[in-house]
Every structure is written in structure tokens, then in C-alpha cells.
């Protein structure tokens, strides 16, 4: 019983320690996503041409 309680306590401690970091990382990823989407919407031509060029280069490398 003591072992189980100890395990539970350790797991709870780890969760409490990790949870804020996970929440922070989630927030950062969501912010980055919204920034990327807004940039693409503001500069569609530039982004599409860049993606086209990147795809072309990847295709050229893959053909070798």
C-alpha cells in the first residue's frame, strides 16, 4: 500500500511540474500557427511562389 501511495504521489508531482510547461508549449504553438496563417494571408503570392520554388528544389534533389 505504501509503495502505491508513493507512486501516486510521485506521478502527481510530475504531472503538476509538467502541466504548466505543456500548457505553455501549446500556447506557443497556437500563437505560431496564427502568425504563420496571418502571414500567408497577407502575402499569398510570395508564399505560393516560395512554396513552388521549395518544391522545385526538393524535386530536383529527389531526382538525383
Amino acid at each position, binding site marked *: 500500500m505504501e509503495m502505491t501511495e508513493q507512486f501516486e504521489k510521485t506521478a502527481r508531482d510530475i504531472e503538476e511540474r509538467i502541466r504548466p510547461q505543456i500548457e505553455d508549449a501549446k500556447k506557443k504553438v497556437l500563437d505560431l500557427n496564427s502568425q*504563420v*496563417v496571418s502571414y*500567408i*494571408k497577407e502575402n*499569398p*503570392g510570395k*508564399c*505560393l*511562389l516560395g*512554396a*513552388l*520554388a*521549395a*518544391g*522545385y*528544389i*526538393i*524535386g*530536383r*534533389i*529527389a*531526382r538525383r
Partner: protein
Amino acid sequence: MASSESGAPNGQRAEAASGAAGALTVGQRFDRASDNAQEAWSRTRETVNDIKDRLDIEGRVARNPYGMIAAALGVGYVLGGGLFSPLTARLVGFGMRMGLKLAAIPFLENELRGLTESVLNGAGESEESSEGGERKSHRARGTNKGR
């Protein structure tokens, strides 16, 4: 004298006339060329605007930004000649395997469920039948004993 007097102005006039005609034609040609260039430019702009309106690239990007970027990447990849390459073969193979696995999992689940149900039903029926058989044999024994 008169002829020389009159000839010189005439020659000058002729030169002037021919010069004026030449300048006019060059000017006219220049005007015509610039008009044509302007017309061609305006037509090109109209065509480009028409194509832009019809394709609605900005709207599509606004609606689905990542999809459009992926499509542009794919078009660039194909233009770069990567379509018939080992990397494409590997990617397609991996995708096929994943798709087959994902399609097979629900199918296998259904099959297993059906199999377990049939096994359980069969076991229940066999238990009932065996119980019934035992009862019958008990009855038969009872009748035999009675005899």
C-alpha cells in the same frame, strides 16, 4: 535668274516638304507604336486581372492557407522532376501501407467481434443443447428404471 531664284526655294521647299513628311511618318510611326504598346499592355492587364478573378488565388489562400501551400509545394515538386524518383516511390509505398493498415483495422475489429459473438452464441447453444441432452438421458434413465 527667276528660275534660279524660284528653283532654290522650290528645292528648299521640296527638301523641307520631304523632311516634314519624313518627320511626320516617323512621328506617326512612333505614335502608332506607342498606341499599340499601350493597347497591348492594357489588354494584358485586363487578361491578368480576369485570370486572377477567375482563379481567386487570394480567396483560396485565405480559406485554406496550408492546403494552398501544400499544393504549390506539390506542383513545384512535379515540375522539378521528382515525380518518378525513389523518394516518391518510398513516400507512396509508406502511404499505401498506412492506408491499408488504417482500412484494415476496422475490418479486422468487425471480423473479430463477429467471431467472438458467434463463438459465444455457439457455446451458449451447445451448453443448452448439452443440458437438454442430459435431461433427456435422465428422463430416459428414469423411464428405464420405472420399467
